[in-house]
């Protein structure tokens, strides 16, 4: 239905009401009164009383989680950020270090690189969306086999599902580490994670591919009522620490010494030499 109202043309009331004003739904600093976040006084209610990750989730979602969920997030941050400069985002940190970029620019640049389709943080959007949709279908009677085989792209003869299989290696050492944390923190295996395990089992049995940490996270976080977009927001700085580590490693060495390239280390496959035509 079209609800175009021609009397809206050049009507600027909406913007006029907002000129020179900020209307925050999140909080702010009331000078002389305090600093507030979602109704909490940050100095009185948080500092020394909650963990940083609790506040991270509050700012990202508007909900202050229990300490055990924040501790789970703290652990998964450790799992997802390593000091290995072969990982693409980390290599940006290392390259920034060898160029003597500032640590902040390097860490931001590497972190920004994980806003990517192939790896990093953005795939959580698809990972959580998949398991939440799959769970709805499962509840409606669809089998695990049907979930795996229907609607997913097939690559090299295997279904391509976000959260299952990973580049470079098969299997994921982060999952057993997080399984221990999950248990220690008193969480049980919820319905989404349980389905994720079933999909893992099916893929392992039929395609020799299994769940990766994205799949585990997606199942667990879905059981905690977190939406795909919320997970994207919570984990926006997920890889920062590993990028910083790789930056520091090269920043403290001779400049321009990280993976140096000779001219012929880049293969040129373009046009042959030619004269510039008259303009």
């Amino acid at each position, binding site marked *: 239905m079209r609800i175009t109202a*021609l009397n809206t043309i050049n009507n600027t009331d909406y913007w006029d009401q907002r000129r020179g004003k900020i209307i925050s739904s999140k909080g702010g600093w009331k000078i002389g009164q305090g600093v507030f976040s979602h109704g909490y006084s940050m100095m009185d209610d948080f500092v020394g009383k909650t963990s940083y990750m609790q506040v991270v989730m509050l700012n990202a979602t508007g909900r202050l989680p229990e300490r055990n969920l924040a501790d789970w997030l703290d652990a998964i941050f450790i799992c997802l950020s390593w000091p290995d400069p072969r990982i693409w985002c980390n290599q940006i940190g290392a390259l920034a270090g060898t160029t003597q970029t500032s640590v902040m620019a390097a860490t931001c640049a590497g972190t920004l690189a994980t806003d990517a389709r192939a790896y990093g943080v953005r795939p959580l959007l698809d990972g959580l969306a998949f398991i939440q949709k799959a769970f709805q279908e499962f509840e409606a009677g669809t089998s695990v086999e049907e979930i795996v085989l229907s609607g997913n792209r097939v690559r090299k003869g295997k279904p391509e599902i976000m959260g299952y299989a990973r580049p470079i290696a098969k299997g994921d050492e982060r999952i057993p580490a997080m399984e221990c944390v999950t248990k220690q923190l008193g969480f049980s295996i919820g319905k989404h994670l349980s389905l994720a395990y079933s999909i893992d089992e099916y893929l392992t049995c039929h395609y020799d591919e299994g769940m990766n940490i994205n799949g585990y996270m997606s199942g667990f976080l879905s059981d905690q009522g977190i939406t795909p977009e919320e997970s994207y927001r919570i984990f926006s700085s997920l890889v920062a620490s590993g990028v910083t580590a790789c930056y520091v490693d090269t920043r403290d060495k001779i400049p321009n010494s990280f993976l140096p390239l000779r001219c*012929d280390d880049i293969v040129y496959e373009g*046009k042959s030499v030619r004269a510039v035509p008259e303009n």
Partner: protein
Amino acid sequence: MNSPKPSAQVSKRDDVYAQRSVTRIWQELPAEDNAYIAAQSRCHGYDLMALLQQRSFVDVLYLLFRGELPEPEEAALLETLMVAFINPGPRHPATRAAMNAGIGKTDPALILPIALTTLSGKYNAAGSLEECMRFLRKQQRKPAQVTARQLLEKLERPAEGDCHIAAGFGSVYNGIDLMSKQIAEHLVQMPGAGTALKWGQDFAQTLTKEGMGWLATGVVAAVLTDLGFQPRTAAGIYQIISAPGLFAHGVEMANKPMTAMPFIDDENYSIEYD
């Protein structure tokens, strides 16, 4: 930490990674006595020293992305576009990000990355260019009036804020973007103008009575479409075009005190929790 689950057993894949990166854009020929030093650089086969003596910046920019030097009318169109959109203006959020960085005495080398990151957004910014180019490439096969009618029939104008009927087209502050309109009217008459610009001009004119028209992103997308740029390059080209203005506004603030820009007082800062 040993888990019996298969997913916990980690083994390296036998994927084959390239030993060296490959490019079709740039060739660096090593010095005879030092393989790390380039003695000659070529862009798509053209010697850089010859290019810098015989060609303009715009020619070489086009060459980088298209692989060939532009015809004179193509170069003129691209150069005019780059002048037209050299500055998103001091009210654009990306420019304001640059100005915030400048006034805060952020390292000047970081002003542009900050501004360009902000300009990556999908609303009146580089992030919408690819979608806009794909829209133009698809829709220009049929009359603009037909597309406009189809889109208007199912249009639901938002109750608040602007209405974008398609990527690159819509209203600004509930009106028509007059600068983009004027620029498009100039560009469409240039010899290098192609189907996308002309189609976009028709489309924008059809939207006039709805209070909508060209957006800056639409004009840039149309020119890039006519010049044969790939949609995936469009966001970056838009950022390149906008970069001078963004940086100029940012660095203009760098010598001013922090009080030289507004700081909203508490009376005009309200917290309204949902």
